[in-house]
């Protein structure tokens, strides 16, 4: 009897040890590591710096207005060399702008992970929940849009439904194979994501690194401009300016520091910078003297953006604080879009009013005489010239060159010389659509290469 009791006691001890709830094993392993499932986890993902920097930059490298010396060219990565010379040298393996170094598709994965996770997260409908969901939708739209500018052909309503666009990844499951959607589907996805984000986002974000309603309108304005839908472009630029009209007066800047433009200036609607790369743009690049001479001597941008070297060449001072070129959203860009839209729609005075409002903040106080235009075309020419000057190195030039080529009206032929070899980019060339890198096609053979490459 006593023996039996002893055995029972021993067995009881074991059972009490082994039958502890398995919840014990649900404790997280690392203080700084989580399985993201709370709204704040997704917010922290959206606050990751990768959302704000390394925006696709191959288009800017391929654009005009700057050049590099042969020595700098040799230091560039293979994909930068290809972009600079509009070439496709095998093997074309570089994944820059895709996933490499937290590129666009990495950011898209983050947004999808957040959007998938939010479905089961608690707090649906709360301000924070909506805010994060809006941010994720916005960022997905922004990255799709930026990829469309580089890897998909320019929007042509007659062919958009059949032209191959980019893979539209809308879920975080990596086992779903990618396929190229049409250009039309691509733009529609961007627009629908922005429209879904709009009601969720606040007018004034807590930080300039987070999307907001004005940012949604600004991105829509940018998108409609690139598809040459000028009425909508102007409309959304106007919607943005209704909410965010403040311009930055360059006369208030301290010009003494190396980089007079600092982060999160008053005019920044949303912070974003291009990838710096090895310096095909930005600090190692030289500026076309023709572009440099577009600026008047009393134009403050001439000293803020550029720095003439002793040998007579023009270097880059800054497009914004430090080395990374700014490509965020600003009211300045909205004034220019609205001005162009108004000019194209025949409203020359309204267009010039926007131009004058902007330029007053760019010239030394008292040195800018308001301009007028005799015709809408003249207003358009002035608006495009000011667009060129204000948005230098912002990554937007590539989209402009693409649409100008399709319209034919302002088309230009680009040339470059590297080590004695001259390269040319004709308007409407297939080269305006970058090839899909071999490393992508190797892993996903179902993705068709762009025509011409």
């Amino acid at each position, binding site marked *: 009897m006593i023996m039996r009791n*002893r055995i029972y006691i021993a067995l009881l001890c074991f059972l009490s040890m082994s039958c*502890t709830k398995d919840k014990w094993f649900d404790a997280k392993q690392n*203080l700084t*590591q989580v*399985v993201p499932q709370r709204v704040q986890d997704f917010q922290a993902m959206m606050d*990751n710096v990768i959302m704000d920097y390394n925006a696709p930059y191959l288009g800017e490298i391929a654009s005009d207005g700057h050049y590099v010396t042969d020595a700098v060219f040799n230091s560039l990565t293979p994909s930068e060399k290809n972009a600079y010379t509009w070439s496709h040298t095998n093997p074309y393996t570089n994944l820059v702008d895709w996933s490499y170094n937290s590129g666009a598709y990495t950011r898209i994965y*983050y947004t999808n992970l957040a959007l998938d996770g939010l479905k089961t997260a608690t707090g649906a409908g709360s301000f924070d929940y909506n805010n994060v969901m809006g941010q994720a939708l916005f960022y997905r739209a922004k990255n799709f849009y930026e990829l469309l500018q580089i890897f998909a052909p320019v929007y042509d309503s007659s062919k958009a439904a059949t032209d191959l666009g980019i893979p539209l990844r809308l879920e975080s499951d990596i086992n779903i194979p*990618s396929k190229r959607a049409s250009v039309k589907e691509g733009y529609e996805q961007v627009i629908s994501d922005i429209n879904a984000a709009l009601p969720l986002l606040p007018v004034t974000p807590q930080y300039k690194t987070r999307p907001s309603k004005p940012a949604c309108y600004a991105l829509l304005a940018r998108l409609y401009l690139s598809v040459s839908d000028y009425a909508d472009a102007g409309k959304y630029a106007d919607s943005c300016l209704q909410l965010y009209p403040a311009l930055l007066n360059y006369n208030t800047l301290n010009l*003494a520091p190396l980089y007079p433009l600092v982060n999160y200036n008053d005019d920044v609607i949303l912070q974003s910078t291009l990838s710096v790369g090895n310096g095909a743009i930005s600090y190692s690049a030289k500026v076309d003297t023709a572009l440099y001479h577009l600026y008047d001597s009393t134009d403050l941008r001439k000293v803020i953006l550029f720095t003439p070297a002793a040998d007579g060449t023009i270097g880059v001072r800054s497009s914004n604080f430090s080395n990374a070129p700014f490509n965020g959203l600003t009211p300045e860009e909205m004034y220019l879009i609205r001005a162009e839209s108004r000019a194209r729609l025949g409203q020359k005075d309204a267009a010039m009013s926007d131009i004058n409002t902007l330029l007053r903040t760019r010239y030394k106080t008292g040195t800018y005489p308001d301009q007028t235009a005799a015709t809408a075309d003249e207003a358009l020419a002035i608006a495009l010239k000011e667009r060129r000057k204000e948005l230098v190195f912002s990554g937007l030039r590539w989209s402009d060159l693409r649409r100008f080529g399709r319209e034919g009206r302002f088309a230009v032929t680009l040339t470059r010389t590297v080590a004695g070899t001259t390269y040319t980019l004709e308007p409407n060339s297939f080269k305006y659509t970058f090839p899909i890198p071999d490393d992508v096609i190797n*892993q996903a053979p179902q993705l068709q290469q762009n025509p011409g490459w």
Partner: protein
Amino acid sequence: MKIFGKGHVLPWPASHQTILAMKLTAFLLTAALLSAHAGARSQSVTLNCDHTPLKKVFTEIRKQTGYSFFYNYDLLKSAHDVTLSVKDAPLNEVLKLAFADQPLGYVIQNKTVFVAEKLELRLVPRLDTDTSKPRDISGTVVDHRNGQPLDGVTILIKGLRRGAYSLNQGRFTVKDVPAGAVLVISSVGYRTQEIKVKEGMTGPLNISMEFQAAEIGNAEVTYNTGYQSVAKERATGSFVQLSAEEINRQVGANALDKIFNITSGMISNPGARNHLDIRGLSTINAISNPLIVVDNFPYEGTSIQKDVDGVLNELNPNDIQSITVLKDAAAASIWGTRASNGVIVIVTKRGLLNRRPSVSLSSIVTVGAKPDLDYSKTISVADEIAFERTEFGRGYYNAYDDNDPASKYYPVAAPVLELLLAVRRGEMTQAQADAQIAVYQQHNVKDDVRKYLLQKSISQQHMVSFTGGSANYSYYTSVGYDQARGVNPGDANNRYTLNFNNTFRPINNLELNGFVNYTQDRQYQNNLSFNQFLPSGSGVAPYTMLADASGHPLAIPYYYRQHFEDTATSGGVLDWHYRPLSERKYMDNVINLYHVRVGGSAKYTILKGLSANIIYQYERLLTNSNNNQSDSLFSVRNTINGFVTKDPLTGRPVYQIPVGNILAFSNVNQNIWNVRGTLNFNRSFGDHEIDAIAGAERRQNSSTSTSGTLYGYDPSDGVSKPVNSATPLINYFGYSSSIGSPTGIGGSLLRYGSYFGNAAYTYKGRYTVSGSARNDQNNFFGVKANQRVQPLWSAGAAWAINKESFYHVDWLPYLRVRATYGYNGNTPQGLTSTTTAFATASYSTGTIVSPVLPSASVNSPNNPQLTFEKTRIVNLALEASSKNKRLGGSFEFYFKNATDLIGTIVLDPTTGWLQFNSNNASLQGHGFDLQLNSRNIVSKNFKWNTDLNFSYNTDKVTSYHQPVTTAANYISSDYTPVIGKTLNKIYAYRSAGLDPATGALRLYIGGKAAPYTQLANARPSDLKYFGPSIAHYYGNMMNTFFYRRWTLSANIYYKLNWYFRRPSINYSSLFSGFGGSADYAKRWQKPGDEAITNVPALPAGADFNLDQAYQYSDVLVTKGDYIRLQDIRLNYDLGKGNRRWPFQSTQVFLYMNNVGILWKANKYGLDPENYSLIAYPSPRTLSAGVNVNF
């Protein structure tokens, strides 16, 4: 007084059991003699007892007389209580009274009273059959080693139940010995011998007893698995056990250092990824270190010593009783998902019951030679200076001035170049420069390094331990102190260890154990590594002067160009020069480690053979590092200067980091607890024997860490100054740069739980079958609970062939075969942040956003199929031993198949990920371990033993999804998995010789000789496969010689069948001014040289392709095979105590480690374990030690 009659006769009939008891008694006697200490106080006793237990009487007598009592605990149960009253009575009288009615007898020897069963005193009948007349035989017994008389030896007449003890200088007399009788002379610790009494034999019999200490150890070998002890003769699995003697033979502060070279199937590969491996690899990407278990539970060491050989740094090796290595599935599967890489089980010392108190002292001092700087063949001073002058003459270095400072271009220029550039700038005449160069010509930086930056290493180990035990209590206590200084002055550490281990038996059936283990280790890291100042290609120019003629430290070009440091210094920043020799006195970097391990166990015997056991252990590790960096240190001045900007208005320097000391500190606090409950069943039923264990356990390992950096720190008042680490700043060079986050915090929590069972059944002592199973759970991966369970099992069988009735091989009395099959698991601990079932994210403090926001980075995409790595092992073994164990050993053959290994899959980048870890790889391996022990010579005074280990292991990657596509992939890392090849291997470009016209290297590309410039076109098919880069055959041979009190042993260690890339000239380093290999002198210089050299001609400038092609070409692949004399130990045993020598045992020894290489396959004078240009062979060390017991 004579108790049992005249002389030392023991005239009681000796049953078989009694002989055993006597053996035991004699053994205990020996043990007692080793530790006898108390002097007699008095021979007279005063006692007043009334029904007092006999035990208490003993205690009282011991108090009064100092005589000790020795008895079996069970024996005393039969004793009656004592009633007596004496005053100042002689001891003998008192004992006589006390034992009067007892069923016990006693004998007094050397102030010890031995109590034994009383046997009936009766006359021995004459053997009438014997025609000869019986007679008394006397003699003496001595120890054969030293001729010392032996007391307490039993001399019995075979077949009769009587005999005698040797007493009083080893003398004995056996009464009435029949002629032709055989005397059996035995004593525990000595070989039993039989002497036939020949007819007519007269005179004293002189008997010499052969010492047999090792036999005692072998008598009952048990393997400790960390869960239970498995008797050797019933084990089915593969174990290697190392005793305290084997561990202590080599000198070292870390236990693992002492077993690398003597353990079958275990290899150390310095520098390789799998540094320490047991029977090869079972994983590709996860941690490959074996699990280390100390006293039942995994031991993880402190946070700064995660390298496997550092894990045991806080454990004093002198406290170790034994180390068992578990090699196959049956041995290790009880450790479940942590067993794949093998398990090393360490058991620390405990007290033994019924053991006289003893004190042991040991002291060892080790002195190591300075590293041999002449071993690495680096470029000569003359060659270097000639090279610099020539290249300067060609204008190669003009850019150093032309681009400086406009492009902020400050490459380090060698001192001669700096002089020539100064001449070019017009700051110096050519004659002045030449005069200084002439001084450099006479100087070698190695002389400075030897003089200022090297010292002999010295280490000391001191230890005192106390152990003993009574019938129901035992203890072991030790205090250790280790002190060491390395070859780099300023590198030192002090370690204190404290150990208490107590075992109680408060009631029948219950045994309690409690222990406390404390270690405190202070490490001073106030040293410069000397090898960074060697002209190896990454250090300094070979003629660099570290000090001037009077020994004052000189500035050297190291981090920046000297010209930049000279000019920048005048610009208003802190002195930017680097003077290595003045650094050390400003260093104050101390790391304190504190490690406490406390625990206890309770074992309750429920019924015969069945017991329940609960063990608990708590560990706490604190690592506290404090690096107070003076503002006189270069690193501090450099940090501060790096963030100096000029005020645009005043032009004055603005210090963005305040001038002052920089304090970097970190604290890591680890708390680990373990609890385990087991039911043990161990019982024999006739021919059947069952040994089983089942239980459950939980383990939690939590750690938190904080670290920080304080700027402008004043150690006198502890005040520091704030810095702006939130936003990027413009640094001295005009770039944007951030001051790193000043504080950091981290934490981890690992939880493990498992159920396990293990059972072995033996029939007739011949056939054993065993099986084990285990389920593991943990909180890794963030997987759902039901997916975490990982059942792992094993099965085994053993057959003792020699015990079969049909077995009649006399010369091979021991023959046994074993076979096991089963699975071990591996938790990919090192990969947990990127290998998870759910997508996980890591939080960090954002850097761009202001105010700083928490930022989360996704570590990996989700992988719900994720599971543990598994290794299936088949082990087949044969054990045999010849007669008298003259030749014995084992041969084990095994296959391993590791599946579900974590491997990398390349993904479509549009998924957002370039690659992904999942269970997609596999690895196969096989090998054998051969162990041979031979007693080559066994004679009275001289013995020679040889122990040989020979192991073979190979592995092959059988699947891996990350393709190796380019030749550079094969070359860049020896660990890149290639399907069908061993994991650690060497591929090389095929050299096609040097171009006869230019001396440029040519490679075979696409089957044709091509200039090295086409390196990028090389395809994998152009490479030559050599073989493994870690040895596949290895082992050791230990020879031990015994001569009287001397023991000499030497260990030979060897590694065969492997390759390494020997270093040669790297022209890029040479152009950078950092020297390089002496092969420069052998370079191609004129047509025709290609016939006598493989060293390419000097290129026009730094050429990455050339260096890459040459460094990884087949001409530099060298065979690594070697045989080395690892160490020699000479031991002298001063023997037991006598009047002149008060200690019970004393040993002194000399030990030399890293003696030298006996043979090597390479012809370049290279030690294959240390072949780089900054390496040197492990310096010889000489140790002297003494070990005293009393």
